[in-house]
Structures are given as structure tokens and as C-alpha cells.
């Protein structure tokens, strides 16, 4: 495929869709799909045929629209009306009312004026709800593969790296390492064989950013990987994701095939001498395989266990060759940087954290779903403007960012801007973008216990601090929750938390104590109430009566 053919394809697709007066877009994200949105298309087509509207209205299954908590979603363009909570049995009546009787069902509709959408800024999620995830021509019609074409025909690999460096993009997997520097390091390695790996092993409970991107915009991810491969000089890429994401795997497989057929992947991409192939590797869902060295071990077919760094994967990665490893979201940002320039990207966000970040809003928040916001937005705006406040009108207590390895941020920091440095300062991390909101009925000790249980379960068992330390901490937290702990236990917990944080081998162990340390920092009174007064301040824990006879039974 050449550049002219690309433009021609885009023009044809736009013309094709332009024929229709209306478009019905059905959300095909995993959340809406699991609620039955997969059956809508056939039903709608039947109704349209009945009223002879088939040539006027296009029916499309599109990517995730973001407001997962109100799904299944169905949008009608050009009116811009979104129907929420669409039940499979009422699809017919909605279509009838909308197109035949002319009165949209009022109570369940929202528009893009809804506060949930207003403060968002789309780069990664851009057009996700406007195009069929698997239609390559629709992706081209919304401007897809232009960045790849531009990089391959107008820029040298060094230019691409310079642009990414200028953008200030930082790794979206959690640690926030500057992406441009990482690319440069891999590019400089003296090796004829190099690899590009996409980390799609999203394991945080309550996080679904990467899944949505892989499901709803697979071509954008592939485009970003291809540009990265061009920049660092790789010819083979791997997408590592988990078996728990069957829809993402299915769509990625189809997308890779389709992209190879059209000449966007494979040999002689877009008529140039650049070759790049992508394969999918499916993990068994171990949380630790999101750690880069464990992930690489898993791709190689070995037990998914981390190893000591250095050497970093950029020097010695897959089978000992230099390997670039980035998160799904990082790759999904690349197209915009190449299209609009690094300076444009750097103008969004804060001084040290550029661009946007995708968050998965979850927990006791009204609008659960996927949001993309510019860096530097305050936590208050996230929760009360975009998120619509706390469920059931209860009081906000804390928000947990960054998944099980993040910390809990209390009410007094609501007005802090969200960026890598600020979150770190208050004892949490950006992480991959989990955002779990807790109300005043939540016991913070119980929260810490939950996350510690998760980490103990997911520890690989290689190093002692993480393997035994997390379990011992979990047991102490269990004692505290039950009201059976003493102050000695509490002090041991604190000492252990610091040791595990500093002595563990990989990121899993090093960050596992974060929920404990941050809740002790901000909610120590709750710990002390459990220990000294044998009561739970949030009234959610079952305090056991101490019975001396139980020692002898």
C-alpha cells in the first residue's frame, strides 16, 4: 500500500459512511458486550428493515465509549444522543420511537454535554467510540496509519526518537520512565536483532485501561509499535497479554492479520524497506508477569519470575537481545506525537508529566468507567466532576491510585494535581491508572488487608522478603482487623513494611507495602482503634471477643 492508496481508502470509507443519514453506534467494549450489546446489531437491522430505513441508517459496532457503569450504551449520530442501560428486549422500541415516532426516550438518554465527558481530553481514547475496532478502513478514515506513513517516509529513526523525547512522554505502565530515553538506549545498542514488546499484562484489580485500548483500538496500538520498531531498529514485536482478556486477544489477532494483509505490518511496510512482524503471547494471568523481566522470561517460555536488574531489558532482554518494552497506553500515545509534533504533546499536562492519562474509575463512585484526563487535573475534579461524586450521597474517605501497589490518598489532598511526582510525594503512585474511590463506610485496615492478600497471593516466591514478608504482614493485618492484635504486632508490621519495600527483588515486593504504609500514615487512628479499643471506626469489621478458653481448645 502506498500513501495515495491510503488516502484513497480513507476517502472511499468516508464516502461509504456519508451515504447514511444516521449512524447507530453500539458499544462493543467487554463490559457492554457482557451485558448483551453483541446481540443489538442484528435486532436493530431487523427493525430498520421493517420500516424501510436500511439505506438511511448505518449500524456499527464500535469501541468502548467510556461510561461503562451506565452500559450497555448505544449512540445515535449525528444527534449525539447516548442511550444508557439499554436492555436487549427494548432495543426495538427505542429504535422505533427514535426514528419512526420521532421522540427519543427521555429518561435514559445523555449527550456529550454530560459532565463525565466535558473535562476529558482524548488522545489514547480518541475516536474509540466512533469506529469499528476491527475495520481497518474505518481506522484509516479517522486518520489512522498517517503517523506510521509520516515516520517511514519523512523521518529518520533518529527524528522519531527526538520527537518522542521532545514530547516528554513517560512510561504509562506505572514507573514513569521517559519513553524517548528508553527508545534511544535500545536504538544505540549494537545488535542486528532487537525486539519490541508491548506489556498488556494488566493485572491490577479494578483496572481495565489497557484492555479497552486493545479491544477498541487495536490498530492504534499496532501503529505505535511499528513506529517504535522503526525508531529502534527492530523487526519483531510481541504483545504480551493475559488469557483473561479473550476479546482483546481475538481482536488483536484479527487486527494483526488484517494489517498484514493491507501492508501496514509484515514485509516492506507501506512500500518502504521496513519490515515488522507482531505476534501475541498469552500469559496465564500471573500478576508478577507485568514486571518486565518476568514478562520477558514468560515470553521465552520460562517460569515467569523477575531477575535482578541491571542488565536492563534495553541492553539484554528477550533471548539476550536488546528489547524495548512499553505499556499499551504508551504505544497508543505515539501516533499523536508523530502527527502533531512533540511540542504539541508537551503543551498538555504539567511541567514534569506531559500529556494525558487514562484512568479506570471504580469503587464507590457514581460514574464508573474509563476516562482520559490531562495530567495535572485535581483529584477533586476527577471524583466530583467527572466521577459524579460518591454513590448514595455518602462522604468521601480516600482514593486508592495505582492498583494494589499504590497508596490511599485521604480527603485533605483532594485538591492536589494528578501527576507522577505529586502522587509519589503523598505516598502513592500513578501506577497504570487504577482509581478506586472509597466512602466513609470503608475500614482502611480492611482495605490494606485486602491488597496485602492480593500481593501475597501473587508473589512469585523467588525472594524471601516478598514471599514470606507479604504473608506475615497479611496475617498481622488479619489479627488487627479481628481485634486480636497488640501494639507489638503493629510495630512489627511497620518494620516489616519498610524492609519488604527496600529489600525485595522486583517492583511487586517493593511496592506491596504501599497500601499499608499509606493507610498507617493517614489513618493510624483506625489501626489504634482496632488494637486498643477493639472497635472498627467504620463499623465494617467483625471484632472477635477474646476468649481465653480458645487457647486451650
Amino acid at each position: 500500500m502506498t500513501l495515495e492508496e491510503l488516502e484513497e481508502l480513507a476517502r472511499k470509507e468516508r464516502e461509504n459512511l456519508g451515504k447514511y443519514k444516521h449512524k447507530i453506534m453500539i458499544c462493543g467494549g467487554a463490559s457492554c458486550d457482557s451485558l448483551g450489546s453483541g446481540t443489538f446489531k442484528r435486532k436493530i437491522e431487523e427493525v430498520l428493515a421493517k420500516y424501510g430505513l436500511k439505506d438511511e441508517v448505518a449500524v456499527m459496532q464500535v469501541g468502548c465509549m467510556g461510561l461503562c457503569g451506565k452500559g450497555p450504551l448505544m449512540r445515535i449520530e449525528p444527534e449525539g444522543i447516548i442511550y444508557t442501560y439499554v436492555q436487549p428486549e427494548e432495543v426495538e422500541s427505542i429504535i422505533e420511537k427514535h426514528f419512526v415516532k420521532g421522540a427519543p426516550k427521555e429518561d435514559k438518554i445523555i449527550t456529550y454535554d454530560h459532565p463525565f465527558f466535558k473535562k476529558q481530553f482524548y488522545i489514547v481514547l480518541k475516536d474509540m467510540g466512533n469506529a469499528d475496532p476491527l475495520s481497518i478502513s474505518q481506522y484509516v478514515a479517522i486518520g489512522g496509519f498517517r503517523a506510521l506513513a509520516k515516520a517511514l517516509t519523512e523521518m529518520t529513526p533518529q527524528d522519531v526518537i527526538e520527537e518522542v523525547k521532545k514530547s516528554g512522554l513517560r512510561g504509562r505502565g506505572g514507573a514513569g520512565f521517559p519513553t524517548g530515553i528508553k527508545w534511544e538506549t535500545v536504538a544505540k545498542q549494537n545488535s542486528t536483532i532487537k525486539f519490541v514488546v508491548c506489556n498488556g499484562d494488566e493485572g491490577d484489580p479494578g483496572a481495565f485501561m489497557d484492555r479497552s485500548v486493545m479491544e477498541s483500538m487495536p490498530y492504534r496500538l499496532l501503529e505505535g509499535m511499528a513506529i517504535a520498531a522503526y525508531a529502534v531498529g527492530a523487526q519483531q514485536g510481541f504483545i504480551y497479554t493475559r488469557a483473561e482478556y479473550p476479546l482483546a486477544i481475538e481482536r488483536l489477532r484479527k487486527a494483526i492479520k488484517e494489517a498484514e494483509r493491507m501492508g501496514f505490518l509484515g514485509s516492506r511496510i507501506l512500500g518502504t524497506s521496513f519490515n515488522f512482524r507482531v505476534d501475541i503471547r498469552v500469559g496465564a494471568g500471573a500478576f508478577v508477569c507485568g514486571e518486565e523481566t518476568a514478562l520477558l522470561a514468560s515470553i521465552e517460555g520460562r517460569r515467569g519470575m523477575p531477575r535482578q536488574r541491571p542488565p536492563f531489558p534495553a541492553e539484554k532482554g528477550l533471548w539476550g537481545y536488546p528489547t524495548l518494552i512499553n505499556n499499551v497506553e504508551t504505544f497508543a500515545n505515539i501516533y499523536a506525537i508523530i502527527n502533531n509534533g512533540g511540542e504539541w504533546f508537551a503543551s498538555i499536562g504539567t511541567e514534569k508529566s506531559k500529556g494525558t492519562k487514562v484512568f479506570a474509575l471504580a469503587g464507590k463512585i457514581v460514574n464508573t468507567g474509563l476516562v482520559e484526563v490531562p495530567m495535572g487535573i485535581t483529584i477533586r475534579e476527577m471524583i466530583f466532576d467527572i466521577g459524579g461524586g460518591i454513590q448514595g450521597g455518602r462522604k468521601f474517605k480516600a482514593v486508592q491510585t495505582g492498583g494494589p501497589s499504590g497508596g490511599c490518598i485521604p480527603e485533605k489532598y483532594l485538591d492536589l494535581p494528578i501527576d507522577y511526582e505529586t502522587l509519589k510525594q503523598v505516598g502513592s503512585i500513578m501506577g497504570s491508572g487504577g482509581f478506586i474511590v472509597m466512602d466513609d463506610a470503608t475500614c482502611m485496615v480492611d482495605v490494606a488487608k485486602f491488597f496485602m492478600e492480593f500481593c501475597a497471593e501473587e508473589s512469585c516466591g523467588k525472594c524471601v522478603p516478598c514471599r514470606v514478608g507479604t504473608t506475615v504482614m497479611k496475617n498481622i493485618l488479619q489479627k488487627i482487623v479481628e481485634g486480636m492484635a497488640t501494639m507489638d504486632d503493629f510495630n512489627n508490621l511497620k518494620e516489616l513494611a519498610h524492609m519488604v519495600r527496600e529489600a525485595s527483588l522486583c517492583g511487586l515486593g517493593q511496592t506491596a507495602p504501599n497500601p499499608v504504609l499509606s493507610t498507617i500514615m493517614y489513618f493510624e487512628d483506625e489501626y489504634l482503634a482496632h488494637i486498643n479499643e477493639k472497635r472498627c471506626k467504620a463499623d465494617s469489621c467483625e471484632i472477635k471477643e477474646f476468649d481465653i478458653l480458645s487457647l486451650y481448645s
Partner: protein
Amino acid sequence: MGVVTLTINGVECTGKEGQTVLEVAKENGINIPILCNLKGLSPVTACRLCLIEVKGMPRLVPACATKVQEGMVVETNSEKLKNYRRLIVELLFAEGNHICASCVVNGHCELQNLGFAVGMDHVRFDYLWQSFKIDASHERFVMDQSKCVKCTRCIRVCDEVEGAHVWDLGGRGLNARVIAGLNEPWGNVVECTKCGKCVQVCPVGALFEKGATSSEMVKDLTFLERILKGREEHIWVR
């Protein structure tokens, strides 16, 4: 090979380029506690006992896998490190069912020695008292899971020196176990050459010779150096 100068605990030391901090410290009479590391086997950095502070590095690094560099300033025995080591040894004791009095290696045990070395007088944490299995299906040796510290020396010596790869790690987290073959009784694994290298490198009483009772099992590590030296000098090649 070049020579590098570095400071360990305030003492100026010299080492060869390519050596690890652990090796250089040992040559200069500075003892860094180790458990998983064994000279001649690849480092796994799993026990985290040899962690050291290096000036200019944000994290603690394992001495067994850190190469010496010119002008490096290393601290191996700060209060923090001593405390962390003690905590790690305590965790190891809490994890397994280590009852020295009835153990085959009592008195010759590396974990016991570590306990003395880090000044452990009791374990602060509740013992986990997991239930473990003993595998006595092998004709010469016994594997007692309750004493295993997952140092993986047996796995590495079998794979890297003997070349049989009988052992591997199965399970996850606290349920990680050293397994024989495809998680089958050791005696059924036909790949096992019955050489006993794994038994000799085991730092604790998890692997021992059949028939040994309390305190009777003394391990001999000299074979490893002999074999590796012989290989280097090609003494077995005609």
C-alpha cells in the same frame, strides 16, 4: 584485566574488573552473609541477605550480582542492613518448620549459622506452621520440604553442573516448592543420576542422605570447586 579500587566499610580495597562486590569483600576479610549464593553457580539474588548500600545508588543492591567499579563506596554493615538481615532470617524461620534439635544438619546448618551471625534471639512473628511433605522415595536421599528455604542451589547445581535438571520450582508465593521431575516422587524421576550434588549444596536439612539422624549430616562443598576447576583446565578432555 584491570584493577579497580573501591571502599568497603571505609576500608580501601582492590579487586579485579569483573569481580562482584561479594568476592572482593571476601578477599579483603569482610564477611557479607549469604544463603542462595554459591561460588560456581549462577547468582539468583533471591535471599536478599547480601544487600549492600552503594553510594549514589537509590536502592539496596545484592553484593553477589553487583560488579565492582572504580571509586565505588560500599557499606555492608549499617544498622539498617543489620536490622533487615535479621528480619529476613526471622522470616525464613517463621516460614519453614525449623526445629534444630531434631534436624539432621543441626550444628552444620547455614541457616542456623546465619541466625547466630545476625544475632537472632527469637522470632518476632507468628510461625506459619504450614504442612509440608517429606519425599523418601529416592534410594539414597530424602527431601524434607519443611526445611527448604528456596535458595534454588539444588536446582542450579543439577542444571548447570550435573546437566540433569531434575529439580525445578513449582507453585507460587508461599506455595512455591522445589519439585522433582514433573512434580512426581523423586525416586520415579529417571533423569536423576543419583550423584548427590543437590544434597551437598543444600544449605539446610531439606536434602540429606538416607539414614542420617539428628546432627549427623555434614555437607561437603569441595566437590564443586574441583569439578569447575577441572572443567576450566580441560583435565577430562583427551
